[in-house]
């Protein structure tokens, strides 16, 4: 099992552009959460997707949006990029129901976004 996979690993964009990041959850997981980790900071929760709908959202503007597909994979979209959006974007998957401990988050390696 490859665990949680994210793509791309690195990308560079300019201010005002739009970006799409992708995530495939760990096998057996049905829930995807996205986090932003700025340099020197802990991860910050953006939102969570389950059954193809956004279920919970952190304190991020509407420029941040997402999608979950029937195969449980997910995308994070950021519009009108700002310099401050430069960060590592982490995807984490979990299983909503079932085995004890299955709702522990498993993280991907992240996509590092640089906005110039």
């Amino acid at each position: 099992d490859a665990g949680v996979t994210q793509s791309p690993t690195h990308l560079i964009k300019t201010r005002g552009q739009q970006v799409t990041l992708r995530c495939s959850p760990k096998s057996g997981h049905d829930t995807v959460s996205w986090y932003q980790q700025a340099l020197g900071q802990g991860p910050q929760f953006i939102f969570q997707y389950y059954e193809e709908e956004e279920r919970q959202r952190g304190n991020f503007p509407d420029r941040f949006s997402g999608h979950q597909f029937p195969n449980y994979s997910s995308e994070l979209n950021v519009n009108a990029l700002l310099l401050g959006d430069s960060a590592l974007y982490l995807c984490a998957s979990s299983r909503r129901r079932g085995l004890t401990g299955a709702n522990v988050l498993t993280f991907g390696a992240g996509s590092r976004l640089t906005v110039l």
Partner: protein
Amino acid sequence: AQRVTQPEKLLSVFKGAPVELKCNYSYSGSPELFWYVQYSRQRLQLLLRHISRESIKGFTADLNKGETSFHLKKPFAQEEDSAMYYCALRGGSSNTGKLIFGQGTTLQVKP
């Protein structure tokens, strides 16, 4: 407000010395607490969670609701313990993907 505080950005100890990484939280209900670790060039991974009450790689952490703390301890540090450690809190439903992370503490174990 939900908040996790890790007061030390860097903790440097010698091999064989005891280690205590501090974590304090702010939450009005019954939180679930975690420690995540990130070794060099690896992804963030779960080290332990308070409800499991287990020892992983010699590390333990006890939830102290009176002091709102969840400090991570190990009696004898090893060089391979050098990593970034994050304390995290989950409030509300156990199905929520929302964790509140502290800023992290870098543990450096010197030979």
